[in-house]
């Protein structure tokens, strides 16, 4: 959209939007692990997202324009976040490979991550609003 490219894409809003999307998805992955803490044979899942978030921060030095569908895109498209099963051994109960302490820590970390993203996003919108109206409040 035109407005997007003029206003929003020049701010940190798209990056923070991605942070909220990713942390919210990771919350679901973690809560699924915790819900299955006593399921025999369950395999822990996690989300790979670092590369995706980095792509918002580290802008490529060169960007190629594609005039033909056979052109190789420069830079290469970033891998979207994906769910994977980390290779960890069975835990002490022998039921599955969920380490509840690790899950709870990940949960707390993810929660804070989301809160930071939400706070910054609110700040970003506030700044835009001030820029548009030209006054505070």
């Amino acid at each position, binding site marked *: 959209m035109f407005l997007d490219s003029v206003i929003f894409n020049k701010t940190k809003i798209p990056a923070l939007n991605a942070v909220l999307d990713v942390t919210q998805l990771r919350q679901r992955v973690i809560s699924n692990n915790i819900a299955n803490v006593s399921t025999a044979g369950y395999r822990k899942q996690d989300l790979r997202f670092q590369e*995706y978030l980095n792509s918002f921060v580290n802008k490529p030095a060169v960007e190629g324009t594609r005039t033909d569908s056979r052109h190789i895109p420069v830079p290469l498209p970033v891998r979207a976040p994906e769910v994977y099963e980390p290779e960890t051994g069975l835990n002490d109960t022998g039921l599955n490979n969920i380490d509840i302490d690790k899950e709870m820590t990940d949960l707390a970390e993810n929660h804070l991550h989301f809160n930071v993203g939400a706070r910054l996003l609110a700040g970003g919108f506030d700044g835009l609003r001030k820029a548009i109206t030209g006054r505070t409040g």
Partner: protein
Amino acid sequence: MQIFDTLDISATGLSAQRRKMTAIASNIANVDTTRTDEGGPYKRRRMVMLEAPKLTKFSTMLEQTRSRLVRTNGGHMIEGEPRPGEIFTGSGVMTQEVREEPTKPRMVLDPNHPDAREDGYVVYPDVNVVTEMVDMIASSRAYEANATVLSAAKDMINRSLEI
């Protein structure tokens, strides 16, 4: 709504642990039960946890079908990347109840007991109170963990309303 799916997942965890707790309570309450409707001593109830089947949402299926229809040539651009929220389809946990056949029933010599066998022994259920207690503590901790996840998810939803 994607963000409410977390609440659903944690809710399946909470209710599974609660059902497990009910089974444990029933086992402990019936530790001395020698007579049941189906005959014989009480059989231990065990809750087996299963991973709930993966959810495929209508919107996801529609999106997939739509992009399949749109692309008629390998050179066509892929329209619409899946949103990050749509790649995970886990939906929590479910339980299945199993009545265990006794492997080592407790035998007590008490010829005056109304349910005593001809040799004077009474067959008590194969319920070990210590095992039940340990299961109970584990289940209670798992319940707490799910409750923590739930309150974290609630806080995230509230926080996103402040944007």
